[in-house]
């Protein structure tokens, strides 16, 4: 029997190009399960937009749908242009933490502020994966990467916190170890208007797990052990915040999205 989620994939690109043990496979499955449970037989009414990076390769060329694979950091504005011209299509951005929060951080901030009607999935492997495991804005304090050989001196950014305060309708972070919660977050995000942001903390077996001496499975267990529920996050010290992973929903609102607001002011 054919796996039911294969209907969302281009058959000629299975198996995928991702490294064995990469967390991307888990994110894809959770997303496909969300599509399935919401009753999407095909993804004909979706447009996937991505930038550059391993995570940006999820839609292009794997997902069986229209997709636009753009520049490093610029997926959100391209997606914005598509959505404003074709408001009836579901526009979904998928990218890495470097792509979305690093080089594309300004677009992320402003799309959230506008409450632009887009869903963004950010796969946070805490490094720049495709280019060899360099420092990312999300790299935990103290972590060694190829460009922080003595350990990262910087405080990592809590992307969800920023996106939530900028005004997005829905914001959540889960690790790939929290499979069911991640899938539920995707479902919730898919059903909403406005800007929706789901961050999936995901292991990079080639650039991180191997360097810190963990198998991909042990890396997921490490994420689970290191996670803190957002309800308890207030109690964390600054030092703990710089290395722990806060999980849960940062925002869940139903403000009008950008397109609705634009129609209200332009009067049509």
């Amino acid at each position: 029997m054919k796996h039911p989620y294969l209907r969302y994939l281009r058959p000629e690109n299975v198996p995928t190009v991702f490294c064995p043990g990469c967390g991307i496979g888990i994110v894809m499955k959770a997303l496909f399960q969300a599509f399935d449970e919401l009753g999407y037989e095909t993804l004909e009414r979706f447009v996937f937009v991505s930038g550059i990076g391993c995570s940006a390769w999820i839609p292009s060329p794997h997902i069986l749908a229209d997709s636009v694979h753009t520049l490093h950091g610029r997926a959100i504005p391209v997606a914005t242009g598509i959505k404003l011209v074709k408001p009836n299509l579901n526009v979904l951005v998928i990218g890495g933490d470097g792509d979305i929060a690093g080089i594309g951080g300004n677009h992320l901030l402003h799309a959230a502020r506008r409450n632009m009607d887009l869903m963004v999935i950010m796969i946070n492997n805490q490094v720049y994966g495709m280019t060899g495991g360099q420092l990312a804005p999300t790299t935990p304090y103290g972590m060694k990467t190829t460009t922080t050989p003595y350990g990262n001196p910087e405080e990592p950014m809590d992307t969800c916190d920023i996106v939530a305060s900028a005004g997005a309708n829905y914001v959540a972070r889960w690790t790939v170890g929290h499979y069911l919660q991640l899938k539920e977050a995707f479902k919730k995000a898919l059903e909403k208007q406005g800007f929706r942001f789901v961050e999936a903390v995901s292991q990079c077996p080639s650039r991180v797990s191997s360097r810190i001496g963990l198998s991909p499975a042990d890396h997921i267990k490490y994420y689970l052990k290191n996670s803190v529920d957002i309800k308890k996050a207030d109690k964390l010290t600054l030092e703990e915040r710089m290395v722990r992973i806060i999980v849960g929903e940062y925002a869940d609102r139903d403000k009008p999205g950008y397109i609705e607001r634009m129609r209200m002011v332009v009067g049509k």
Partner: protein
Amino acid sequence: MSGKFFWSGNIAIAEGALRAGVKFYAGYPITPSSDLMEYMARELPKRGGVFIQGEDELSSINMVIGASIAGAKAMTATSGPGYSLMQEALGLAVMLEVPLVVVDVTRLGPSTGQATKSGQGDLMQARWGRHGDQYTVVYTASTPEEAYKIAIKTFNISEKLRVPVTFLIDELTAHLWETVRVPEDIEVIERRLTGTRTEFFDSDDPRIAPPMPILGKGLNVLYTSSTHDAYGYRKTQDPETHRRLVKRLKEKVVGNTREIFEYEVEGDPDGGEVGIVAFGSVARVAKETMGILEKEGIKASVLNLLTLWPMNYDLLKKFTENMDIIIVPEMNLGQLVYDIYQVRDRDTVYPYNKIGGGEPIYPRELARFIKEVMKR
């Protein structure tokens, strides 16, 4: 809409774009282009389009790319610093074969330079500002009336060839108010679309752009900035796919030079004592200079270039070969003059370059220079 209108160059461009059917504008404020943007902010929603102010030029141009992929004729306007920021995305538009128009209202660089003053220093950037081998189209205009017509032509060529087009207009022309005669009939080209799975990114005749796929129709389109095959599948190792794609993208532009090319000759095109080759506000100055020279018995002709890339070298050669001397006045330190060097011996080609303060090249000053050169 036809008749006479009193417009600035920038407004003429906006009106030309609207006549051509522009439905999307994203931009970021920068003098001397902001008035064009403000005009669009007001007009576009009334005429069935969408306007958005981006958080920067990177977002603006990328929004324009998205809008065009989604099916709208789309544009932005900016000036030097913003145009520099847009270069990477223009390369993306070349690779994805996305039609769009960027207006660069040229000011005086380098960098912030003399920000609001006129200049023509962006010519080479418009041609070659992006990495990798890539070919795009560059237009310009010397009057608001030309700006209106050229604005329509930028969209026509962009849509027909699936290529990003830059419209360079110097600040002097952009902010010059003048009567514009708008004709009743004017050709507007619509892009070719496909609702079936055909070759979205290849064509047997490289001069013909493949039709653009419609999103949301189950075509499973793959647009990618990487080297790709006819259906958009990444082919980042195969040398043949890369050669075929990049050569086709070049031929699509260069092979259509005749159709793309717009120019105007004032005076005798077949020869004379002085041939002046110029563009933008300087072409206008050159025509004025012709009159001064004529009174003194000197026979001059002006080639006013409205297309700056791809260059029609046959035309340049024909215009220059029977002139005693060629004068190339520019509001930069010499960029267009290199095209003349390609078709004619340098000994009789005289650049006249003026920058600073946005001061135009005055007709008397150019006439003086020409007379001085003729004595050499």
